[in-house]
């Protein structure tokens, strides 16, 4: 039997059992960032585009969902859809601009565009300025299943909803990467002029990949709002854009499972360290960045796959 399939099934089984063993909110947070990191990986790992402004889409999803849930009182699935839609539209717009330049400029443009979103969220009245959106209600899924646990009981309903959405997003990315469309993306990553000379409209594929990635990042952000009940400026800050790059780097850029592992490692680390070392967390993240770039460019999953293959 296929070794990859076994790995996925084991991971899924672990995630099914996780809330009985670990604090569910932590796992849900990891799942949100794992989806975010996978969406980012679709762009960096499989299309070869480094976006340094993906927090804009994550944040757009978070704020979009937060606004719909808070002010329109919609059900959670509608809130998630609104957040995803906002991020997708923003992604189409930013993507169309950013793909006009390549390489290093692409990264700088996405960073600058994301900073615009940050200032918008800081100044516009509808996003709540410096406070962001607090106390976003979770509501009832499809108007039936309450996602709000009663009397501090573990949030199982919420957890399995989040897990289902993550699995669906992960599956979509998996299918995309392994589809003919995904093959063309990889061709663009490997050699863009050649893909162009083979007759593929490179810009259209890049834009589509960018939009898809932005939409999924938005879904992850919207889910984060649902889990934590708030959307804040941190969600759109450039540091969040950096974090998602780091998750990919640690887990393994261009591997299917890498971003999931990377998100797990980074979020757990941040959670563990925040109480113990306080402001040093930033320094430690920086050190991990430097070490990964210098010595460990394949990431955890990349190393494992490399070792297994060379045996």
């Amino acid at each position, binding site marked *: 039997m296929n070794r990859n399939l076994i790995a996925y099934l084991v991971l899924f089984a672990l995630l099914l059992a996780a809330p009985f063993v670990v604090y569910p909110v932590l796992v849900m947070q990891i799942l949100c960032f794992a989806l975010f990191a996978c969406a980012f990986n679709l762009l960096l790992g499989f299309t070869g585009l*480094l976006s*340094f402004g993906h927090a804009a889409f994550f944040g757009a999803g978070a704020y979009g969902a937060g606004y719909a849930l808070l002010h329109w009182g919609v059900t959670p699935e509608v809130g998630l859809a609104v957040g995803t839609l906002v991020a997708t539209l923003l992604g189409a717009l930013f993507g169309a*601009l950013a793909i*006009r*330049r390549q*390489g*290093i*400029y692409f*990264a*700088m*443009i996405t*960073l*600058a*565009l994301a*900073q*615009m979103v940050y*200032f*918008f969220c800081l*100044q516009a009245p509808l996003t709540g300025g410096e406070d962001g959106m607090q106390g976003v209600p979770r509501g009832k899924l499809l108007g039936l299943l309450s996602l709000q646990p009663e009397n501090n009981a573990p949030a199982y309903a919420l957890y399995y909803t989040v897990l289902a959405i993550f699995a669906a997003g992960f599956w979509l990315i998996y299918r995309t990467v392994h589809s003919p469309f995904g093959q063309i993306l990889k061709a663009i990553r490997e050699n863009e002029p050649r893909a162009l000379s083979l007759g593929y409209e490179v810009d259209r594929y890049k834009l589509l990949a960018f939009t898809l990635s932005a939409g999924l990042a938005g879904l992850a952000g919207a889910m984060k709002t649902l889990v934590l009940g708030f959307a804040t400026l941190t969600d759109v800050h*450039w540091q969040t854009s*950096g974090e998602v*790059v780091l998750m990919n*780097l640690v887990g393994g850029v261009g591997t299917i499972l890498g971003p999931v592992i990377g998100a797990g490692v980074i979020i757990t680390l941040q959670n563990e360290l925040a109480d113990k070392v*306080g*402001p*040093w*967390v*930033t*320094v430690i*993240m*920086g*050190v*991990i*960045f*430097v070490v990964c*770039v*210098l010595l460990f*460019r394949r990431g955890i999953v990349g190393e494992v796959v490399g070792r297994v293959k060379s045996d």
Partner: protein
Amino acid sequence: MEIFGRPLPALLGQLLLGLVNGSFYAILSLGLAVIFGLLNIINFAHGALYMAGAFLAWMGLTYFNINYWAALVLAPLIVGAFGIVIERTLLQWLYKLDHLYGLLLTFGLALIIEGIFRYAYGVSGQPYTAPEALSGATDLGFMTLPNYRAWVVLASVLVCLATWFVIERTRLGAYLRAGTENPKLTQAFGINVPLMVTLTYGFGVALAAFAGVLAAPLTQVSPLMGSNLIVVVFAVVVIGGMGSILGSIFTGLGLGVIEGLTKVFYPEASNTVVFVIMVLVLLVRPAGLFGRER
């Protein structure tokens, strides 16, 4: 007297403030362009090193009573030496790889530098007073000119032009340009390219530290002052393109002025106007105003 319904002194005041900001954009984007030319690395740590320059000036004055003028020389030297160490120990391993790894590594460095200063001094700013000789203001009749701001613009433009002169008009600059164009061939002519690369990085970050010292008396010296600036400088670099040194200087100063004027006419947009211009330039002239596609 009023222009477009705004009092002239306010307009000129913001214009000068815009020029001051523009000077910082110019020095920083110039440093980025010089480094990128030879190293093919976009130095994300530029903002953090600019902040380090400002902090070195503040620390010098606070702990060792080193005055502003000495700091203006010492801080760039120290940061430049630090840059040389970074280049020798870290960056030199990346030249054969994709450009993006350089961006990621220097991003990590920026986090480290900023994190250390934040740990030591918190996020609130430290005040730094301008030297006696430059405090006060001169009355020009139509406006009062704060001496220190005038000095910042003057010093920045001089440093930028000196850099331009060295790179475009001297033998050393010719080597540098040759190294940018074709490092292997330049090396074959017996020029020590790796040494030049190291010194270029040191010089580029020293420029950032120089800008930091200039900025210290204008703003509160805070660990966050660099990261807020660097994103704008990236947009400036995208607008100007990194092909031309004079182009970087003009773009930096020009965008500073535009930002200053936006503060007078439509303050809400002053944070984002540079990014909006970037979008327009991308639509009309994707390679940047002074850039060439490569």
